[in-house]
């Protein structure tokens, strides 16, 4: 691939490590320039940044007191007014405050679940792709079997047995979503394994760890990155669903728990749209944002997917 705008590397002046880092930075710059051309991806990025900022600046935007049931000042399910922009919930708390603070939990749990899922999935994917013979095929079978297990029934049981906490929810989501990542990483690993430079590394005496760590992993990382954003989308959706079913931490507010309250209070029948509409819309917005980013990243990495 020729890139006339890149700084030519002066041979002999840089060490190998500096060389490879320079190349990586150039590849990153190229990838970013390509990503910028995807309008949908940029829109997604914008939305994601906005929500992350809201989550981080929550204390600045709304007082933490607003979450306390005992300190609630509003009436029950008041419609939006000048005082409460999005009305109140069944305990008199401002829905807007709940929404802002809830973003923290939804995003945090989603992120944590993704980390767990990606670590397990990437590890198993790499190993099952790298090792041929019975080790590799056992891992592959294991992945396939796990893939077939339906998410929600398993999540319900695990959450019930492990108890209701944020970490457990993240763990449950992580445990149930790693298989699809593992399969993707595995097929990537398999194709990278065939490439000539890996064979040369082996001939030069590279050990397994070195091969996996220094050669396969860096080449798999871009795909991992794209897959991560899509996994975050799925994780946030899952957290919302599990919280809605009452499996979340009852002391913390997330968009899912808000919807659970809305449903049990019958917000639809009383027409309290300010209670059940905003949390759902926020979930849709964030999940859509991550999905758009993920799809744009996939297109940047795999030109064949362009034009979806």
């Amino acid at each position, binding site marked *: 691939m020729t890139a006339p705008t890149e700084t030519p590397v002066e041979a002999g002046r840089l060490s190998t490590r500096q060389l490879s880092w320079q190349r990586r930075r150039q590849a990153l710059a190229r990838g970013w320039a390509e990503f910028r051309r995807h309008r949908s991806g940029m829109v997604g990025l914008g939305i994601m940044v906005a929500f992350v900022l809201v989550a981080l600046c929550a204390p600045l935007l709304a007082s933490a007191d607003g979450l306390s049931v005992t300190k609630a000042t509003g009436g029950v399910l008041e419609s939006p007014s000048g005082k409460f922009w999005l009305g109140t919930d069944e305990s008199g708390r401002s829905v807007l405050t709940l929404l802002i603070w809830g973003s923290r939990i939804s995003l945090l749990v989603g992120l944590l679940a993704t980390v767990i899922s990606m670590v397990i999935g990437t590890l198993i994917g790499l190993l099952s792709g790298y090792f041929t013979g019975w080790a590799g095929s056992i891992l592959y079978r294991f992945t396939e079997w796990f893939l077939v297990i339906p998410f929600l029934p398993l999540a319900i049981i*695990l959450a019930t047995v492990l108890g209701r906490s944020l970490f457990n929810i993240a763990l449950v989501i992580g445990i149930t979503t790693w298989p699809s990542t593992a399969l993707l990483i595995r097929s990537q690993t398999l194709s990278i394994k065939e490439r000539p430079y890996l064979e040369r590394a082996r001939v030069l005496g590279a050990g397994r760890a070195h091969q996996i760590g220094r050669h396969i992993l860096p080449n798999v990382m871009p795909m991992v990155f794209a897959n991560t954003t899509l996994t975050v989308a799925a994780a946030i959706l899952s957290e919302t669903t599990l919280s809605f079913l009452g499996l979340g931490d009852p002391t913390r507010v997330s968009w899912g728990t808000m919807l659970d309250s809305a449903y049990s209070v019958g917000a639809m029948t009383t027409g309290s749209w300010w209670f059940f509409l905003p949390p759902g819309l926020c979930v849709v917005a964030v*999940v859509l944002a991550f999905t758009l980013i993920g799809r744009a990243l996939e297109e940047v990495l795999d030109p064949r997917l362009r034009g979806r």
Partner: protein
Amino acid sequence: MSMVVAGEAPATEVTPRSGGRGKSYPRYVGGKVLGSLGSLAFMLVVNFFLFRVLPGDPARTLGRGRFTTPEQLAEFNRTHGLDQPLVEQFFTFLRNTFTGDLGVSIKYNVPVSELMLDRMWPTLLLVGTSTILSTVIGIWMGIHQAWKRDSFLDRSTTGTALTLYSMPEWWLGLVLIAVFSVGIGPIPGIFPTGGLDSGAVGQSAIEHGLDVAWHLVLPVFTLTLAYLAEYSLIMRASVLDELGEDYLTTARAKGLRDIQVRNNHAVRNAMLPATTVIALNLGFVVSGAITIETVFSIPGLGLLSTEALQTPDYWVLQGTFLFASGAVIFANLAANLLYGLLDPRVRS
């Protein structure tokens, strides 16, 4: 007029295998069935260990907060065979499962298998109808979107599909209830807010059937919409992948009409990866059924699962997990067999 061509050079011409389908398909089926049995076995193991190998004393976990005296604990352990060695427990579990003894519901005090049978048909009705509708419509839409790629129709439907895909299906259900069952402002709701029927007595079979159907309109619509979006995206991507293939040029060169090229060639091939991906996503249809039944109060297996969360009714949860996993494994097997019929390369 026959050409005389020098005999096939043996070194380069490989003797082709027989073109018959019958020979290798049974073997393919056998392989897939074996694989499914393996998945089933794995799932049974997982099911068994879920309650027993997790932190804490099983009796305390399973009978959480209900036993205080050591005698009660010991009694519980004995009746549930928890004082046996683990391996023996596993075989008891297997034996019970295969004879249909799935334990007794803590909440209803009724055998779990009986409870499940009772609640099964609303779920089958809901899931079956939605799956058929979403698959058929989704695939049809995906084909048309891909064929007229980048048209306004394509862009708008793809955008809508992505948005629906990002939505929790049960939240969509909530919104639809608010709009169509409760009504907005002056416009009244027309659909029931939940339940399977109106509970009226003395209905004839047809009247009851219509009543149930009316109650199922919104739930089926919600579930269909949720998965239709995903399936159309999958099929669209699949057809787009085929568009660049050479055999389509050959088909056009032969003078076929555009529709023929699309249906007989592009779509026929695009069905292959689409079938696989759709089958893999069937597990999520099961999950969707759980949440939709909960939101619409449909007395099926999904609602049973979420009700069981409250107590918590462990044996019911275990039973529904078994059923759900079994259903997904079976659906995957069916999809694999279908794939084997569609793709001749896989059978040889």
